[in-house]
């Protein structure tokens, strides 16, 4: 299984918790959103409570845990939103 390199954009409290607007991760080449979340939680344990209530967006659309990622995707962690 070749590794896949992805970046994850982080916003609001997520950005604050990881201390960066973007984090780079190495995932397996057939990684799903669920695996992305587990990897994130493993590397940034402080993120875990927030991750449990966050959505993942791929190319600007919310996706489910089963969604399969590819390196060309723009990936973002979307904590519960509070605009308005």
């Amino acid at each position, binding site marked *: 299984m070749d590794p896949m390199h992805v970046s994850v954009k982080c916003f609001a409290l997520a950005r604050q918790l990881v201390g960066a607007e973007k984090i780079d991760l190495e995932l397996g080449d057939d990684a799903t959103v669920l695996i992305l979340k587990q990897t994130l939680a493993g590397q940034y344990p402080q993120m875990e409570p927030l991750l449990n209530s966050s959505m993942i967006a791929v190319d600007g659309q919310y996706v489910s845990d089963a969604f399969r990622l590819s390196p060309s995707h723009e990936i973002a962690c979307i904590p519960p939103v509070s*605009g*308005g």
Partner: protein
Amino acid sequence: MIDLTHEPIDTAQLLARVGDRRAGAIVLFVGVTREFTDDRQTAHLEYECYPEMAQTKLEELVSQVRERWEVCDIALVHRLGRVDLGEASVAIAVSSAHRKTAFEAGQWLIDRLKEQVPIWKCENWADGRQEWVHPGLESPSHPARDES
């Protein structure tokens, strides 16, 4: 018209934008920075967004309004960055032939915006503390609150 801006929101301009020869009703919703939430005092708010996705999501929501209701026009502005007390963080204007449509469409749009659009508010409390608002997330210091 959909806009994400660091400038103060001009509600008069929004109202003018949705004027239409078939419009008999305009409903404008303005979300403003309130100083007091129950007994807690706010100094100011700060908003950040995921710009491309926020724009796309807002466009999708506006399209959905146009599918569901016979509106004449819609204008929506969300402010980013620092928003001082009493200032508008968001404004939505909807015009339609009859008023029920404008009320329903305006309320639906702000409800969906608050659920779906990747924009976040940071409370800057008067006591100096900062707090990102993430509805549903347990905050050790304060229980979840309703927003405006």
